[in-house]
């Protein structure tokens, strides 16, 4: 009963001062839109980086003249190392073909024998696809008999890790700033609404309404504005995505949990903002 009444009051207030509601909803949706746009960019950048990192592998070049028996034993040794998920053998012949495909035949034609060594391409398990993981696996392969040289993307993996970390941190930071700004703006907008209705609040208090009873309509109003604002933001974001994505190719929209989180965030912020501004008007 009280909730129905409060909801009716909230709608009454929205109808009575539609401009304020519009301002609230507009501000929430703009803030969340900016946040959402940034999230989309970070999300895609992160996905791209993770994709690159998933291709991180180690290549162990073998000494020339290794007999098959030794090579197979070496392959088994490497395959059982912790952090190794797959191993693939590239024979001298395959190396030559691969080289020819990438750089053309002309260079190889200059030499009689095949100068390219055979190698193992070692793939890492997911948790080891970091600078540290790759290094530790590489260091274990290096001393094994028959291994001539191990190469892996030492520097750039580390830089990639840093980049991912920075991107995540910046996302969190922007999220925080947007949250604070939204709460601030909503609480100020609600303050205007409350000010416009201070007489009604005074009368409510006078006839014996509890603080909670006075607050509830505003809570519902703020929460509704937050919900509408965030839905609007998601809609706009999707619209922008549809408009821009074809030109960029392969860009993904935010995953469902992130969209949901955005909507929940807006709704909660709306509620919090509305309650913050009420305190001073309840001291009657």
């Amino acid at each position, binding site marked *: *009963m009280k909730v129905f009444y409060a909801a009716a009051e909230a709608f009454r207030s929205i109808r009575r001062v539609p401009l304020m509601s519009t301002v609230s909803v507009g501000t929430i949706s703009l803030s969340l839109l900016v946040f959402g746009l940034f999230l989309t960019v970070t999300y895609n950048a992160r996905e791209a980086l993770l994709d690159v990192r998933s291709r991180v592998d180690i290549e162990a070049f073998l000494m020339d003249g290794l007999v098959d028996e030794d090579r197979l034993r070496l392959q088994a040794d490497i395959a059982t190392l912790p952090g190794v998920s797959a191993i693939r053998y590239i024979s001298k012949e395959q190396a030559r073909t691969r080289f020819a495909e990438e750089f053309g035949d002309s260079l190889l034609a200059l030499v009689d024998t095949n100068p390219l060594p055979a190698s193992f391409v070692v793939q890492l398990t997911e948790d080891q696809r970091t600078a540290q993981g790759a290094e530790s696996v590489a260091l274990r392969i290096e001393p094994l008999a028959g291994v001539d040289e191990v190469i892996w993307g030492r520097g750039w993996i580390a830089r990639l890790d840093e980049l991912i970390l920075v991107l995540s941190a910046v996302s969190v930071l922007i999220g925080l700033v947007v949250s604070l700004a939204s709460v601030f703006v909503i609480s100020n907008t609600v303050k205007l609404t409350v000010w416009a209705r201070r007489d009604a609040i005074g009368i409510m208090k006078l*006839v*014996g309404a*509890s603080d909670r009873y006075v607050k509830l309509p505003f809570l519902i109003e703020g929460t509704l504005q937050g919900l509408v604002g965030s839905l609007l933001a998601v809609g706009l974001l999707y619209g922008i995505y549809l408009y821009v994505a074809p030109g960029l190719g392969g860009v993904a929209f935010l995953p469902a949990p992130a969209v949901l989180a955005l909507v929940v965030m807006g709704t909660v912020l709306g509620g919090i903002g509305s309650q913050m501004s009420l305190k001073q008007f309840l001291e*009657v």
Partner: protein
Amino acid sequence: MSLVQIYHVAKSYGAVEVLRDVNLVLERGDFVCLTGATGSGKSTLMKLIYMEEQPSEGLVIVDGYRTDTIRHREIPLLRRRLGVLFQDFKLLRERTAAENVAFALQVTGASPREIRKRTTRALALVGLGHKRNAYPGELSGGEQQRVALARALVGDPVLLLADEPTGNLDQEAGAGIVELFQRVNRMGTAILMATHNLGLIEGLAAHRVHMAGGVLGPPVEARP
């Protein structure tokens, strides 16, 4: 136990002393007129009774609620036992007469049926049953104050506090309100009415106390 007990109450706002050593006791069913010039402290005394203000010194006890022990969340409970009336009616402009009256019951969580029943009864009591759907802007001053009175009475208060209830009304409308007060009082509700209009309460069967400069004078007995 007496309905209202005020003991050695002083109230100051900063350096401004509004009330000084005020003592007053109201019994259930009493009708007391509080006279005094504007600014003599009548409104402040009213505020102390419905506990919008706390005394700087002394103690106020209303229907068992004490200013020195009442909790913030108990104040609404006290106010539901009181009816308050102001000079400026304090009606919500965008609600009809019936909605304004019902408002006071809605906050108590009464059922819609109960609200309808009691709203109708309260409006009938003040003689405005036929104007239940009129908005305050469509009513005369006297009618608006009667709507406010219906709102104050709809919860069956033990005490009606009226702060200059006729201040914005002409003589005739004001007399109408006072007449209603007498009826309400005969039904058992205690009334404390603050007014500076002595002509209005001439011949009224009520106790009279006079306030001047924040000090309450001795009770003046009602004239026959």
